[in-house]
């Protein structure tokens, strides 16, 4: 039985049950999900660019094959997520248009450049690691199609994180230049990775509602702490230094303490002033425009085939 009103919706949320597309839901819930799932999908699609940058320059055929598989996965994740968003009454084309127009954003992490090969390892380890922390939480989200998409995505993200970390193990076992390259990479990616969890809970505009609706199940700061606690020992194993002088184990809390995040940088990148905001969106729009003839040709072909079939049935 589909939910009919607010009371029934509230009861399902309270019972930790799932909301499905045909159910009644508050307008705000629908709008929040369209925005969040849309931005999540855009992040996957834009996220293909920083790594795609290194496919032609991967050092071995093995690493190239891994990287192609990973970038293909990101495209797939974007498509699962667009499908989930479409169950809320928007079309794929509307969502893509919102990205191209800049009215929908994507994760700021992809506005940073991939400057060396170690970045491919660091993105898998830190960026996908942060994403997994978030996405495991989202797989318990109250909206059924979103939560189902997350289950599938988390399985594949695990490959992404492990291949990245293993890439860094190999580099850190290598020459001093390779180790220095890895250190340079973590120096640049550590703080942007922590920023991926969003503003502090006290400054987070959407958190309260999203938490009440159980779209979001764990706060930004708690997820960030979880990520830091998991990641520090992994950096130690690699012999890499985390670029935070305030990072220290706090016995009493049972967590790592870490230094202040540069929120000025964070907001600058969200506002569009990051290193590559313009390039990422220009590239995406150009790819869409360049592919227009393919989309049109596919429709023309389908129409011609359908007309032929109709004709042959008529004359049979």
């Amino acid at each position, binding site marked *: 039985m589909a939910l009919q009103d607010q009371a029934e919706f509230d009861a399902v949320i309270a019972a930790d049950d799932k909301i499905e597309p045909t159910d009644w839901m508050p307008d705000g819930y629908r709008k929040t999900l369209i925005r969040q799932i849309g931005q999540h999908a855009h992040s996957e699609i834009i996220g293909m660019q920083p790594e795609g940058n290194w496919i032609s320059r991967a050092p071995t055929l093995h690493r190239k094959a891994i990287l192609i598989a990973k970038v293909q996965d990101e495209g797939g994740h974007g498509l699962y997520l667009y499908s989930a968003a479409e169950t809320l009454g928007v079309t*794929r*084309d509307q969502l893509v248009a919102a990205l191209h127009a800049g009215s929908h954003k994507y994760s700021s992490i992809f506005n940073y450049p991939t400057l060396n090969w170690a970045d491919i390892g660091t993105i898998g380890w830190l960026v996908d690691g942060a994403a997994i922390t978030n996405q495991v939480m989202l797989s318990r989200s109250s909206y059924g199609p979103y939560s189902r998409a997350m289950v599938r995505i988390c399985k594949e993200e695990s490959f992404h994180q492990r291949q990245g970390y293993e890439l860094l193990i190999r580099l850190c076992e290598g020459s001093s230049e390779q180790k220095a390259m890895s250190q340079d990479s973590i120096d640049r990616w550590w703080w942007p990775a922590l920023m*991926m969890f969003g503003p502090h809970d006290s400054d987070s505009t959407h958190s309260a509602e999203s938490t009440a609706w159980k779209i979001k199940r764990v706060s930004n700061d708690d997820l960030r702490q979880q990520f830091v606690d998991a990641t520090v020992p992994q950096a130690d194993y690699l012999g890499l230094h985390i670029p935070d002088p305030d990072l220290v184990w706090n016995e009493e809390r049972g967590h790592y303490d870490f230094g202040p995040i540069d929120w000025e940088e964070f*907001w600058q990148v969200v506002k569009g002033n990051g290193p590559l905001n313009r390039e990422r969106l220009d590239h995406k729009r150009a790819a869409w425009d360049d592919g227009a003839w393919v989309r049109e040709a596919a429709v023309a072909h389908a129409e011609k085939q359908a007309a032929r079939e109709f004709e042959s049935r008529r004359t049979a």
Partner: protein
Amino acid sequence: MTYSVPDVPGESPAKSDLGEASNVWPMWEIFVRQTRGLAHVHVGSLHAADAETALQNARDVYTRRQEGVSLWAVPSVEIVASDPDETDSLFEVNTKPYRDATAYNIPDEVGHM
């Protein structure tokens, strides 16, 4: 990758009106048979111009890792769904326990039945 991007303070939030609805390609529902002997199971949907490209896209989107041995693509508009408001008349509520095997007590000494 994920992340819900916060609104910039002072900036008006993203428009909720996403413009006119349009889709260049129709939507298809994709089903995968995991192994011979099992039924095809729904895995998700995608857009494609025709049946042939629907299967090709399904291969790219849903079967990158040994997910199965057979694919179905069905135009989404061809799916007939029951009216959620008629759930009660389509699905039996638990008023007929005599339809269940567990409604019958068989003495232990009879053995497994």
